[in-house]
């Protein structure tokens, strides 16, 4: 398989200034190839979440350079970053963050509304297919607050996949799931990498989870240590 760099960070620094100056990220440089399944590990407060927010383009307050799909995204406007996130990055958060006002199916379709590449019917079909692959198609018409935690996480994964992104970023996706659901989520991730050739970047505390990924980036005190 031809290797292609999906994400590249070049000497990224970030500091908090409130209440006193504290460097959270120091000289972070690494790259992720297409099809990689990468986990980021480290203790609480080591800066891994901060790193994820920068890589996801949501946080723009840093120095250094960030390339996504060989395109420099540092210093792009909010508008450009928003559409880049929409098109190329899928998100899964620890607390699933579904919108309670919508049904499961609508939740999955939301990023597709923004991208506006598929018609309503095609989008609905695609969303339903994703739910089916994740084994939760029977929930599609339920409201988001009516389903269990593990199911929510799977819906979140479906939502992250709806625009067929280059890169999936997950922040402690298994953080508050029981072992059974953890396994399900991990299996889904492996499947995404192997069958769909997605690239995954997962921030996690879970050693087991990290051990099963292709590559683990360990962080300590704002630096990458191996």
């Amino acid at each position, binding site marked *: 398989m031809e290797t292609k760099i999906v994400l590249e960070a070049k000497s990224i620094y970030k500091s908090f200034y409130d209440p006193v100056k504290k460097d959270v990220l120091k000289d972070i440089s690494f790259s992720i190839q297409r099809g990689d399944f990468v986990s980021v590990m480290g203790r609480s407060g080591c800066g891994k*979440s901060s790193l994820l*927010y920068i890589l*996801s383009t*949501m*946080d723009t307050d840093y120095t250094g350079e960030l390339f996504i799909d060989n395109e420099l995204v540092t210093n792009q406007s*909010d*508008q450009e970053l*928003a*559409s*880049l*996130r*929409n*098109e190329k*990055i899928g*998100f899964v*958060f*620890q*607390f699933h*963050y*579904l*919108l*309670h*006002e*919508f049904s499961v199916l*609508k939740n999955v379709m*939301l*990023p597709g*509304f*923004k*991208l*506006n590449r598929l018609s309503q019917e095609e989008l609905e079909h695609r969303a339903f297919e994703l739910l089916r692959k994740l084994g939760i198609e029977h929930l599609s018409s339920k409201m988001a607050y009516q389903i269990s935690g593990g199911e929510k996480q799977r819906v979140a994964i479906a*939502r992250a996949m709806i*625009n067929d992104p280059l890169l999936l970023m997950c*922040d402690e996706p298994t953080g508050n799931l029981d072992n059974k659901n953890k396994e399900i989520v991990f299996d889904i991730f492996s499947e995404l990498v192997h069958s769909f050739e997605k690239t995954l970047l997962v921030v996690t505390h879970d050693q087991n989870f990290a051990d099963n990924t292709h590559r683990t980036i360990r962080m300590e005190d704002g630096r990458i240590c191996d």
Partner: protein
Amino acid sequence: MKTRHILEIARALLMARAKQTLVAAIGVTFSVAFFISLLGFMEGLNSLLDGLVLNRTPHVRLYNDLQPSAIQPIDLDSTYKGYHRFVRSLKPSNSRKEIYNADRIIQKLNSDPKVFGVAPKVSAQVFYNLGNVELNGIIHGIDANEEARLFNFQNYVLDGYFMELETRPNTILLGSGVAKKILAKKGDLIQVTTIKGEKFALKVLGFFQSGMVEFDKTQSYVSLATCQKLLGVPNNYITDIQVKLVEMDQAPALAKEYEALFGINTEDIQTANAQFETGSSARTIISFSVGIVLLLVAGFGIYNILNMMIYEKMDTIAILKATGFSGSDVKKIFMTISLSIGLAGALAGALLGLFFSILIDNIPFDSMAVPGVDTYPVDYGLQYYTIAILFAVATTFLASWFPSQKASLVDPVEIIRGK
């Protein structure tokens, strides 16, 4: 981003806070309804009260004023041509009161397309006799047909058929105040004395009530011919020509034109009744201010509710942004929410306002001062509905601007990290 999807998201957020949304919309509804009914009522009353005077006042009145001649003998003397000439203690000569060549002037006016109609009039000073007592009064000789067509004369006639003025000689429509004073009933014969001392007996045909008490205490109406007979003058004797124009606003200009054309004194309605204009416009300004304050209050209601909604929906905003919705998309969503509250509220308000107006229109209003009216007057002018709806939508738009701006600037990282 398709509008349809923005609408769909906005709708879902609205439904999630249906009660608050309803309260905000009801705020708009009531302020629009009150705005419409208040202004409609005020304007109805205004036009009724103005109509009391304005409908009955000719737009241009042509008459011969009693005034000293503008050209005095000394002006004709060439010796003093270059001098300033002072003449004191001028008195008007006993010039004629009637309009010279009135028939021709009326013909000419009637052929003018700017003129809606012309009614001639003769006025005579009289005394109403009640035994020994003599009451001052003025009798107007009118052309009842034209008077009715142009100045709604029939609305002010109580208890009597005014057209009989024309068909039965020596009949009179007594002013209601006069009738009360001299205890006249319908069908009575009353005595009047002209200033020349001649006595006449006139049969009371009915009563006239203008709504202005002072006026009704002195004035009565007879036909042109009867009045001319009272004065002992021929039937081409006319003291006033009353002109009603197609466009009232042209009155001052046309009054000047006629003055020059006919060599006669004229008076336009705007000059004669300046105080009514002032009164109505002041009342209109007051009711507009009250109405607009109502709408502003509704705007603050929307501002509050939207602000609250944005605090509650921080997570939603953060997730929308994280999944690629831009600040302007978020702003559009919240503006849509606010505008739909405003628009729905305003439309419901317009209907409610119409309902209130109909309600007011059916409240009995029995006033001696205003004949021919038995319920409160309401103006159903479309302009109030348009203004109210436009202003309500504009207010909600402004009220939602800052909260929506705030929503668009929400930093998703802060919200997600904060969990």
